[in-house]
């Protein structure tokens, strides 16, 4: 187990890249504490697999350093780093039995046979594979094979960090949730530092203590699921997390408060006034918009009934946004008025959160 | 360690190029020089051998004959195979699996077994010594191959394409020619390539079914080799010329060679 620190990592797949757009990773500074459960969340192409491969040593970064417990590991190979990696599709040695698959890395490290036996038994029991130990690996289902991949990582006691690259991609949907919770339990039991890469927010938010959200080669926010939900650092985080995501409405600033559709919107505290041509946006999650007779009026386009709640697709001055309305509340179709919860309304400049001024 | 791995393909390629080089080398030598001295390149460079081939009808006619029946065979094989492959790909019908397997077994037939019967059959049909004879005979193993390859490619085209066309009012043949065929163009290319290749290289049947009119270059060459007057230079020139069509074809499909094996059936 180790603390992994990434320092000023930049990476480009082109040998002599100059433009910013040619860099898969812009500038990453990240610390993963020993024994933590982390997630790297982001859409395809945001650079998360690149980052993963740099940590595991399959890729050497164009710039920057990788530290394992303060030892510079930037240019070492994967087998020198004691890492484990589980890939998108199951990687198993088809011709070997499950037992031999799990024992493989240990035999290569010249461990004592009876010790190997012990560890294989323990890991098989952890993963519910005991009954299948002497079956040929090729005969297992996709989730069984992924468990074998997982097992090969768990079976080594010296693993510094365990990385998952979208491991549930080929798993049947109805088995996904089961495997997800098993992974979380495994982490509690084994205590390895684990990093889970995915584009699925549910997977990330349920597995990780802290999530790093990546967008276009940068980590735009690194925080707990709560932080990401309540206080998104970046419009991308607001939009990507939550279903539906945060509403973003273009607005103007007046005296530190946003003005939308002629209405001054209340915040928890005013922000520093910016007089600029940059894009100013108002961000508020559908969950924090209340039906309020004293609020400003919006037009209702459609109401989606999801059962326990409804999503009102509304419009105001050409801007579309969603309102979350819990069960039981009446929704006036004509003349609907809403207001935004000041505690959870944020202002973004060029995508980045503007912090409120400290009370004097 | 890395040095050594680079050596293996290099040595192999040198091994492959040596006999070819030697053939080309000989083709530019006079018979005297060939029989007289041993030299790694022609000391008395001569184009005589090539000139003879291009001017002597018995020689250049051989090339023309070969190309003719090979092209004819490719056309027949691919054209017949297309509807059949479509049927195997899209429809279930009585005996379809057995028919498919029977077709494949013909690829596995020893040509030697067919030499005599073909000789009699084609003589009896009055087709002896024609392009059509060899073209038809080669269908024995080329058609199964073409069907096999085309069926693989066709199965990769979703049925929705067919259904959309019918809904849009296309008749079957119009759909087949205007829409379906372009979508498997790569497959047609691969099938035509293999038909060309196997017909071009085959000797036994081509020689058995021809005598004068449709005689392929292969037969002309073997005749020269066995008669007295070892015209090695001439033989080498003739041989070198037969390599050229193959080299051309490979050059044109160079980007598809490995990919083509991976796609379709293999």
């Amino acid at each position, binding site marked *: 187990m180790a603390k992994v620190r990434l320092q000023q990592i930049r990476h480009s797949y082109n040998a002599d890249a100059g433009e910013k757009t040619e860099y898969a990773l812009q500038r990453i500074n990240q610390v993963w504490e020993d024994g933590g459960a982390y997630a790297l969340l982001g859409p395809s192409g945001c650079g998360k697999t690149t980052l993963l491969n740099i940590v*595991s040593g399959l890729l050497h970064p164009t710039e920057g350093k990788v530290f394992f417990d303060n030892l510079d590991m930037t240019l070492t190979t994967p*087998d020198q780093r004691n*890492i*484990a*990696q589980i*890939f998108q*599709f199951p990687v198993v*040695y*088809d*011709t070997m039995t499950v037992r031999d698959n799990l024992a*493989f*890395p240990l035999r290569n490290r010249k461990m004592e046979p009876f010790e190997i036996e012990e560890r294989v038994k323990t890991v098989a029991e952890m993963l519910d594979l005991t009954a299948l130990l002497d079956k040929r690996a090729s005969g297992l289902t996709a989730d069984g094979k992924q468990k074998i991949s997982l097992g090969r990582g768990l079976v080594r006691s010296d693993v510094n960090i365990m990385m998952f690259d979208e491991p549930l991609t080929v798993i049947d949907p109805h088995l996904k949730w089961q495997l997800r919770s098993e992974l979380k339990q495994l982490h509690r039991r084994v205590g390895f530092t684990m990093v889970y890469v995915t584009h699925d927010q549910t997977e990330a938010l349920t597995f990780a203590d802290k999530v790093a959200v990546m967008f276009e080669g940068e980590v735009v926010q690194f925080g707990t699921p709560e932080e990401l939900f309540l206080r998104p650092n970046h419009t991308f985080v607001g939009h990507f997390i939550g279903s539906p995501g945060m509403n973003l409405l273009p607005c103007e600033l007046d005296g530190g408060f946003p003005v939308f559709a002629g209405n001054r919107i209340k915040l928890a505290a005013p922000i520093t006034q910016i007089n600029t041509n940059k894009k100013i946006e108002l961000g508020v999650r559908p969950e924090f918009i209340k039906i309020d007779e004293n609020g400003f009026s919006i037009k209702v386009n459609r109401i989606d009934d999801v059962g326990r709640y409804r999503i009102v697709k509304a419009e105001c001055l050409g801007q579309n946004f969603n309102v979350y309305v819990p069960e039981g509340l009446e929704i006036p179709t004509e003349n609907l008025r809403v207001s935004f919860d000041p505690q959870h309304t944020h202002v973004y400049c060029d995508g980045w959160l503007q912090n409120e001024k400290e009370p004097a | 360690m890395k040095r050594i*791995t*680079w050596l*293996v*393909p290099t040595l192999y390629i040198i091994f*492959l190029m*040596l006999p070819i080089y*030697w053939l080309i080398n000989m083709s530019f030598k006079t018979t005297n020089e*060939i029989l007289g001295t*041993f030299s790694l390149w022609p000391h008395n460079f001569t184009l005589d051998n090539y000139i003879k081939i291009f001017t002597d009808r018995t020689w250049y006619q051989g090339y023309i004959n070969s190309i003719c029946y090979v092209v004819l065979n490719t056309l*027949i094989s691919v*054209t*017949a195979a297309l509807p059949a492959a*479509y049927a*195997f790909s*899209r*429809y279930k019908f009585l005996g379809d699996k057995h028919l498919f397997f029977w*077709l494949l*077994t013909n690829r*596995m*037939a*020893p040509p*030697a077994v067919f*030499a*005599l019967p073909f000789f009699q*059959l084609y003589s009896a049909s009055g087709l002896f010594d024609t392009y059509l004879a060899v073209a038809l005979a080669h*269908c024995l193993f080329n*058609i199964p191959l073409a069907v096999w390859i085309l069926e693989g490619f066709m*199965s990769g085209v979703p*049925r929705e394409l067919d259904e959309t066309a019918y809904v849009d009012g296309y008749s079957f043949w119009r759909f087949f020619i205007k829409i379906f065929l372009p979508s498997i163009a790569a497959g047609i290319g691969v099938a035509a390539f293999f038909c060309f290749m196997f017909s*071009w*290289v*085959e*000797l036994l049947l081509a020689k058995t079914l021809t005598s004068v009119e449709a005689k392929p270059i292969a037969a002309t060459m*073997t005749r020269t*080799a066995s008669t007295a007057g070892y015209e*090695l230079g001439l033989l080498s020139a003739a041989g070198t010329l037969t*390599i050229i*069509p*193959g*080299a051309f*074809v*490979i*050059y044109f499909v*160079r980007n598809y*060679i*490995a990919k083509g*094996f991976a796609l379709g059936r*293999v």
Partner: protein
Amino acid sequence: MIERIHNQKAWFMVLPVILLVAFNAVIPLMTVVNYSVQETFGNNVFFWEGLKWYEQVLHSERFHASMTRQIIFTSIILLIEIPLGIAIALTMPRKGLGATLCLVLMSLPLLIPWNVVGAMWNIFALPEIGFLGHVVNSMGIDYNFTQQPISAWVTIIAMDVWHWTSLVVLLSYAGLSAIPEAFYHAAQIDTATKWQIFRYIQLPKMKHVLTIAILLRFMDSFMIYTEPFVLTGGGPGNSTTFLSIDLVKIALGQFDLGPAAAMSLIYFLIVLLLCWVFYTLMMRNEAR
């Protein structure tokens, strides 16, 4: 995979193919079967002889001899070409100009007419005049493929390796290219040796293409005719007379219709049987 619908009219689409192949396969085969059970003294007069020809062929020294030669030849060919082809595919560059160059050059022998292959090697291996012949003889080895059976065998085998190994290389290369990078990554993380990677990842994943390669090489080498015929004519003496060469000699050379036909059918049946075995093995592998 496509959902196939029942349609008996599909037979019309298959008709051209059936006609062309049947014309070439069924009629000649019927002729052969016919000859194999009859005796003729010329002038189209035939007498029923039953299985006499089959017995004669199966008991003939000549058939046993050429069958033996054929089996030895095919075995040697497979033992050399398959491992060699795999080894070359493993060491070839995976992409870029080098890869294309390799593939193009290696494909060349496959598109040379088979008689030219024989003629080329004939000229190449001639004792004084040919490059190979000259070099080997000047090294002190007495080499003459036109007179010595061993030299003839060595030359024919070298020629076949030269001619067909590229097919194994191309097939193996295609199989190797299909293996996803992740497997190599995982092996690296598991600290596997190069040999383990070959044995547990590459070889198993190449099973499909290798089956095809072995099948094709087995069949084609078992039916080989042109190249050895042009190179040695079956000689010196009988030493390189393989099954096809012998059959053609009997059929077209001696016009011994009965024995030739019987031998043809036995030959064909052996090939079919082996083909069926391989096909079944291959399909069973796919199903798993």
